[in-house]
């Protein structure tokens, strides 16, 4: 894949993303916070976070008293999945912004996740599968650990480890994870779990046994699921982006170069099925901002994936400072 072409695509899509700012910025009014978190991730990976402090502070402003966030910024009932995504963007953004209000907000978020975990290690959210939900606070705690945040450190480590074990224990013998209600095909959830929850431990402190094997089996299953045209899950753009990104970070950390062709095929399909501006949920469907953020994120991660230093792409998950 020609990196000049990738650079040009990133430039064009980032310009479109900025042009659509009213659709994702909290500085312009209430927003869907899952979309806001997607947008903040683009800013992080485009290295423009310092220009958007007001957006981060606006996210702090809509944090609920319990430390969580609601799916819609004007609401006040916290849910786990979106809280984890927002918390993750704040702690990663604050590495660059170093703002006291963000620091305090991250501590409140840590407490929220410590207070909402179930005894068996899971987190639950009626809008998402338990496994998927659990992967997000674990991902947040991965970055908390990677950055050496000390707030309630012992409790965080315990909660994180319980979450990781809950996920590993539910892996199927074929390497995938499944949820009857939300993810019977297993594709998206498997992609999420290995990249967001599990693989980080291998670059942080190798604390939990079985993580390497679990990630290798999950990555192999993902590879088997890819269609011959390069897509995953019935030409699902979202899930193809998830799988492509997941394999980038997991295979880099595992040191497994066999994933390169699969990643390339996935990326080609994603580019071939782009609209004139942005991406839709399936080929031919109209562009939406969330998928466009995912597309930009995939391109930005691919650029880092192509660098010689294998840690360059891992940085874009926040697992190394």
């Amino acid at each position, binding site marked *: 894949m020609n990196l000049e072409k990738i650079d040009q695509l990133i430039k064009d899509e980032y310009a479109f993303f900025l042009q659509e700012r009213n659709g994702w910025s909290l500085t312009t009014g209430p927003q869907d916070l*899952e979309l806001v978190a997607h947008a903040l991730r683009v800013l992080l990976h485009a290295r423009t976070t310092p220009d958007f402090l007001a957006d981060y502070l606006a996210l702090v402003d809509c944090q609920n008293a319990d430390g969580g966030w609601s799916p819609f910024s004007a609401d006040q009932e916290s849910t786990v999945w979106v809280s984890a995504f927002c918390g993750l963007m704040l702690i990663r953004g604050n590495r660059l912004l170093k703002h006291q209000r963000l620091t305090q907000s991250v501590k409140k978020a840590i407490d929220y996740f410590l207070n909402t975990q179930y005894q068996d290690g899971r987190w639950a959210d*009626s*809008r*998402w*599968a338990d496994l998927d939900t659990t992967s997000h606070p674990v991902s947040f705690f991965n970055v908390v650990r990677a950055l050496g945040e000390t707030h309630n450190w012992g409790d965080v480590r315990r909660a994180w480890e319980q979450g990781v074990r809950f996920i590993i224990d539910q892996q199927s013998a074929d390497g995938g994870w499944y*949820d009857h*209600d*939300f*993810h*019977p095909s297993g594709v*998206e959830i498997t992609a999420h779990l290995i990249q967001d929850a599990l693989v980080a431990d291998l670059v942080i402190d190798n604390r939990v046994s079985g993580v390497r094997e679990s990630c290798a089996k999950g990555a192999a299953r993902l590879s088997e699921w890819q269609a011959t045209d390069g897509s995953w*899950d*019935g030409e*699902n753009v*979202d899930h193809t982006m998830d799988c492509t990104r997941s394999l980038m970070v997991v295979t880099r950390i595992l040191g497994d170069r066999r994933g390169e062709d699969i990643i390339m095929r996935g990326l080609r399909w994603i580019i071939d099925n782009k609209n004139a501006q942005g991406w839709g*949920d*399936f080929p031919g*469907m109209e562009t*939406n901002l*969330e998928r466009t953020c995912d597309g930009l994120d995939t391109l930005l991660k691919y650029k880092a994936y192509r660098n010689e230093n294998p840690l360059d792409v891992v940085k874009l998950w926040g697992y190394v400072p």
Partner: protein
Amino acid sequence: MDPQHWIEACRPEELPPGSRKLVKVNNLEVALFNLEGVIYAIKNRCPHRSGPLIRGFIDRAGRIKCPMHGWRFDLRDGSNERPARATVYQVKVENGLLYLCV
């Protein structure tokens, strides 16, 4: 039902049994399904994360499963096991055209 809310969607022959069709009426995307001769109409965007229901799987109980994150909705009334409901529309065939009540 106020008759003025019935909007022409397509011709019935464009939607034979077992088929599905996405139509746009009043800037609204509506997914149409013909299940064994009965036509159902549901707002195309899932209330969870706006997944396109036109691409969903239909189970034997007549529920459509969103292709993005698996939420299921009864095509007859839009109901879901969670506190969320998809919008469904009445349909009628009249004078060789299929109408939606929107």
